[in-house]
Every structure is written in structure tokens, then in C-alpha cells.
């Protein structure tokens, strides 16, 4: 047997060989779920820097784009949004009187040419227009879907968006309007303001923000809040969890009691109270506020892992070999826990974003900078759903769905990376 030891000793003269993998695609990190999730999150994150390249960010400020106020069903609402309200009302009166009907046929025919100024052809919704003269204006009130879809009638207003053209027609037909005049004004204004157009691809909202710019500015902001809050919370959690688990004794008792006490507090309720008192203006403040409640879960989690790891052979060996507590904790234990920490980190990010969005939807978020939650808040306040302004509430929700799905996929993917047993499940099924 000594000979075998000798023979392997002679083999020791060969130079240390570089470790080679079977091929470079066999890494567990090339997990499809993880990469898809990462791609989705990165996509939202990169909306900011990439969007800045070809879109004007300042359009996200209020009143930088056309307003869509007052509400379309209000009397005295005009299609010509850039005129002062008094003038609008004036022009409306002029037009609704039978004497002004002279303008009507010309408006119908001139539709293709006056596309950019808009409004005139859609005044076909005016009860004066549907006199069976032309297919252009009459089709609108008649509710003929085919006619409504033709670019000559609806398209001139909306930049060719068929949905925008259809909705007012349907809405006008369905709502029992007190008078024909009001119904006509509603339909006209509806199509005119905020609707996605070439000028504003994702539309604008009541305060005059361009939605595309809001998306570019707000979506990365919302994600940043989550990332900062989760990072701070995770850092505190890891440090406290390691201290509690490794030190034990009264340190453990204090930390455990504290984290257990905080974990039962309904976070949202407390955050609402704090948010109502403390005026949150910056994204960073928001993140720190959230981080106050994000550390107990990782603390418990890390502590449990450390407790089980503390008794493992290699930790004992490190202790016997005279390593310091710090190097045992972060040199020996930490590398073993990285996959778990990463998986719970992505989970924590989505918790943080969810909490941040909840606060913002309630109107307690940072007010200066548009975020996804604040956009939803504004949309709710301005009755965007009733007014059919799908682009206002739909875009932030879509962005949030992408972020949450991406984070969820990352969590699942990281779980599979950390736990190889889950990887084979697909093959077995």
C-alpha cells in the first residue's frame, strides 16, 4: 500500500493543470428562468439610460405636454386644447349654433389635410353633421365600425390608432347624453387629448406629462427604490444574522427578540403613518424608510443558516486552526450561503417594490419625481379608468408586471441554481 502512495507522489511532478470544464455552456448559472428574469429586470432598469438617448426626459414634468383637462363630458369642452377655456367655450357655442353649420361640410371633406390640428372632422359627432351627406362624419354617430376604422374619419385625429377612434364612438352611443351637443363635445375631446399619437407615442395625462417620458424616468426609479431598500435591509440582516447565530448568548437573544418583534408589525400600516407625517421627497428617503422594515426576515433566515453551519466540521476545523471569528464568518461560512442570500435578495427586492408602490398608490410617495406608483395614484385621482385613458394606468401597471415577473423568475432560477435537486425535476416530469 505504501507503493501506491509512492506512485502518486511521483505523479506530483507534473505541472498543475488548469481546470477545464466539459464545455463552457455547462454552468448552472445559464439557467433559462434566471436569465429571462434578469433580462426583464435589466430591460426595465435600462429604460432610463436608453430612453434618454432618443426621448426628451423633461417631457415627464407637468405641463410639458398637452393637457387633457377638463374631463371630456364637461360642458364647454373644446377640441382645440391650446385655446384658453373661455375661447374654447366661445368657439363651441359658435359651432353648436345652426348658423355655424356652414363650417361643417368643409370640415368633413378637409379631414385628411387638417389632420394635425384635428378636431374638425370629428365634429362629425355633432348632431348637425349626420345629415345623410357624407360617409366621413355620419359614420361616427351612426356607430358603423367599418367607417370608424377608416383613416379618413377617425384616423385624422388620433394618429391612426384604431382603438382611440373606436372608443369614443362606442362611448358616445352607449352613454345617455343629456343633449346631443354635449355628447358630441365629449366624443371630440376624447379623441383629441392624451391619446397616443406620433407626437406622444404613449399619450399624455391630465397634468401634461408625456407618458413615454414618465415611463423612462419612473420605471427605473421604482426599481431603484426596491434595489436600495433591499440592499440596505439585506446588509443589516446578514450582519445581524451572522452576529446572532455565531455569537449566541445574550447577543442572540437581543437580536432575535428585536427581529421577531418587528416582523409581526403590519408594515404597510406603519409605513402609511410614517409616510403621512414625514414628507417623502426623494427616492433615497423612500428606500431608507422601507429598509427599516426589510431586515428582520433576512436576519432570521441568515441566523438559522449560521446556526446549522456553525457545527459543521470545516467551521470547527477553522476554529481549531486559530482563525478569527470574522474570518470564520465571512471567509468560511459566507461563501456557502451566497446562493441562498442571492435568492432571498431578489425576493426582498420585489417585497420592497411592492411596499413602495403601495405607498405611492396611496399618494405617500416621492412627489417630485414621477414613479410608477405615483403615476397610478394620479391616474386614479383623475378617474383615468372611467375616462377610458388606458395608457395612463395601463403603462405603469405593465411595467410593474414586467418587474415583478422578472424578479420572480430570478428567484425561481436562483433557487434552481442553489439547489441542484430542483433542476432535474423537469426532466423527470
Amino acid at each position: 500500500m505504501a507503493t501506491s502512495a509512492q506512485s502518486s507522489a511521483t505523479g506530483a511532478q507534473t505541472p498543475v493543470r488548469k481546470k477545464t470544464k466539459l464545455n463552457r455552456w455547462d454552468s448552472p448559472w445559464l439557467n433559462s428562468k434566471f436569465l429571462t428574469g434578469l433580462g426583464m429586470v435589466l430591460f426595465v432598469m435600462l429604460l432610463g439610460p436608453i430612453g434618454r438617448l432618443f426621448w426628451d426626459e423633461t417631457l415627464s414634468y407637468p405641463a410639458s405636454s398637452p393637457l387633457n383637462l377638463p374631463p371630456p363630458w364637461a360642458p364647454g369642452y373644446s377640441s382645440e386644447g391650446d385655446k384658453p377655456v373661455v375661447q374654447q367655450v366661445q368657439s363651441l357655442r359658435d359651432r353648436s349654433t345652426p348658423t355655424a353649420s356652414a363650417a361643417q361640410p368643409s370640415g368633413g371633406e378637409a379631414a385628411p389635410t387638417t389632420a394635425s390640428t384635428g378636431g374638425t372632422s370629428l365634429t362629425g359627432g355633432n348632431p348637425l353633421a349626420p345629415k345623410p351627406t357624407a360617409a366621413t362624419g355620419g359614420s361616427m354617430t351612426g356607430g358603423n365600425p367599418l367607417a370608424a376604422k377608416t383613416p379618413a374619419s377617425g384616423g385624422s385625429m388620433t394618429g391612426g390608432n384604431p382603438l382611440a377612434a373606436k372608443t369614443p364612438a362606442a362611448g358616445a352611443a352607449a352613454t345617455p347624453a343629456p343633449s346631443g351637443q354635449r355628447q358630441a363635445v365629449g366624443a371630440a375631446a376624447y379623441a383629441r387629448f392624451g391619446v397616443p399619437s406620433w407626437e406622444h407615442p404613449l399619450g399624455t395625462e391630465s397634468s401634461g406629462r408625456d407618458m413615454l417620458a414618465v415611463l423612462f424616468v419612473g420605471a427605473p426609479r421604482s426599481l431603484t427604490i426596491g434595489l436600495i431598500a433591499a440592499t440596505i435591509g439585506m446588509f443589516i440582516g446578514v450582519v445581524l444574522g451572522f452576529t446572532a447565530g455565531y455569537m449566541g448568548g445574550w447577543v442572540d437573544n437581543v437580536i432575535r427578540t428585536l427581529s421577531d418583534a418587528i416582523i409581526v408589525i403590519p408594515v404597510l400600516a406603519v409605513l402609511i403613518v410614517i409616510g403621512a407625517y414625514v414628507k417623502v421627497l426623494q427616492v433615497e428617503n423612500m428606500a431608507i424608510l422601507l429598509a427599516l422594515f426589510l431586515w428582520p426576515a433576512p436576519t432570521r433566515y441568515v441566523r438559522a443558516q449560521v446556526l446549522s453551519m456553525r457545527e459543521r466540521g470545516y467551521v470547527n476545523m477553522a476554529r481549531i486552526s486559530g482563525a478569527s471569528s470574522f474570518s470564520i464568518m465571512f471567509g468560511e461560512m459566507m461563501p456557502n450561503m451566497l446562493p441562498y442570500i442571492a435568492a432571498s435578495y431578489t425576493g426582498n427586492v420585489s417585497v420592497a417594490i411592492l411596499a413602495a408602490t403601495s405607498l405611492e398608490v396611496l399618494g405617500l410617495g416621492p412627489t417630485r419625481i414621477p414613479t410608477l406608483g405615483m403615476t397610478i395614484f394620479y391616474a386614479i385621482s383623475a378617474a383615468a379608468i372611467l375616462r377610458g385613458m388606458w395608457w395612463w394606468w395601463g403603462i405603469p401597471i405593465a411595467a410593474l408586471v414586467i418587474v415583478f415577473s422578472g424578479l420572480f423568475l430570478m428567484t425561481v432560477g436562483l433557487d434552481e441554481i442553489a439547489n441542484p435537486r430542483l433542476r432535474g425535476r423537469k426532466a423527470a416530469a
Partner: protein
Amino acid sequence: MTVQMERKQAAQHVGANDREITLEVKNLKVYYATPTGAVRAVDDVSFHVYKGEILGLVGESGCGKTTTAMAILRMVQPPGRIVGGNVLLDGIDLVGLNEAALREVRWNTLALIPQGAMNSLNPVMRIHTQIAEAIQTHEGRQPKDKLKQRILELLTMVGLPSRIYDMYPHELSGGMKQRVCIAMAIVLHPSLIIADEPTSALDVVVQRVVGQTLLDVKERMNVSMILIGHDMGLQAQLVDRIAVMYAGHMVEVSPVESIFAEPLHPYTQLLIESIPSIKERKPLKLTEGITHDLRNPPPGCIFQERCPKVMDVCRADRPWLRPIKPEHYVACHLYE
């Protein structure tokens, strides 16, 4: 640095029969506090290890072998506690050392080859990182190429190919991992290595390789070793002297030839009889009875409840270790 100087002084310390003593354990007591009384896991144990010899520490499971080793390393975990006694390593009393001084002694002069080598290597660190860490903890930062040279020499010394330098523990077999642990133990040239059942969970062939490695290392470095185990056959081949433990007490200490030629204590006799022999066919003998409750040992001899040769005096007086033959100590009333 004081530790180093004391070590030099202690080198002049000479044992009873003109052999240098590396480790001297005197009246060591380790008790585990329980709600129903202290469990006397190690009770009044004394022995010594000469320089350059292997002392075998044998006994059945739960007799206090590992606790003794952990007490020497000062690694007894609560509720266990060293209640009394001295552990003199090269003349320094380890029981009285504070944490900082202890950290310097551990691995520098006192190393451990752990029980389960499978669990004693960090699964996420490469072999060379783990060995380098042990070196750098005690000797500070070192140039990379020098460190690599040293680790490769070390691996060669324990008969491992140099390709494992860059490997992870899961890429190695059990025997290789055990030899990596041996390499880690000898990296700082300690004066005493405690090997806690280094060959458990290995098959006999690999056991032999690991045993051979241990012997090679001992010869080359002139290091003292305590080899803990319950495999009498393996002990007979590897060790110079054997210490037999029973229920936290040392019952017999003797050179290996002497103890196998003529075991004196009834417990040792039973232990050696329990080894199945290839040459003769005889029924396997089992020791009757169970060990007494370690919380309240009976007055008199601790082996009285299982001893086939028990006498009245055994129930009254506790026998102490006495030399019967040169270097052969036994704690039994039969030889008064």
C-alpha cells in the same frame, strides 16, 4: 513570541526515563453540566506523550476519548467544562491560557486531524485556498509562488498528486480528503498532532494508506501523535504505546507489545479478545452488561459492574494507575 521561547525551554524538559515529554496531562477532569447532575465524561485522567511517538487512545464509544482530545485542544463546548487538571504541552499549561495565546498555540504546536474528513473541508473552497488559509492565519501574508511551492511539497509528502491543488473537496475520494486533512495538520510543523479516528468511514485498503501516511509523517517530522480509535488491530500496527480508557478513566497504559502479549486489566483483556482471529475458530466474546450512569459512578472500581473477576475490594476502593512492569501501568486490584 513568548510561546516560542517557552517552547525552546521546554525542549530541555526530560521525562522519567530520559525521553523528552511533549504532552503531559495531569488529573484532567471534564464534566458536562446537566439538570440531573454533572456527567463525568473525563474523570481524573493522567498520561503523557513522548516526543516522536504515537500514543493510541482506545476504548468503547462514549468512554471519553474524543472529549479528552477536545479538552487538550481547549475545544470543549458548553455545557461541557474543564473542571480541573493541567495539560502541559512543551511545558505550557494550555488550561490556563487565554483566547489570544491559545489561538497562537493551536495549529502552531497542536494540530487536529478530525474525525470525519468528509465534513472537515469547506465545500466551496479549493484545496490550496484552505491550506493557504491555515498558513496565512498564523504566518501572515506570503508571496504567492512561495506559498504554492510549499503547498505542493506538502501534498507530495502525504502522497497526493499535485493536480488536486486546484480541486474542490467534492472531487476527491474519502482517502484523499483524509490525507488533505493530514497535510493541513502538518503544515505548520506542530509538536503534537491529535488524530481523532482518522480512518473511520474508510475501507480497509484506504485505512492502510492513511495509516502509512501517518507513520511516514511521524518519521519525517519527528512529531508526537495521539491516535484515537477503537480498532485494536489498526492500533497494534500503528502506535508505540496504548492507553485504554473506560467510562472517563484511564485503566491501562502500556507499550503496544507488552499490552498485546499480556493484557493486565480485565477490560483490556476483553477488548483484545473481541478481535476476531483468522487463525483460530472461536466464538466471538462479548462484554456483558452496560456502563454505569456517568453522573454517579459507583464507589470503588469503575469497571466492577462488568468485570468478570470482580472482588469485594473492587466495590470499596478505587484502584489507581500503578506501574506493574516497566512503562506498563494498570488500575486494577488484581495486581496489588
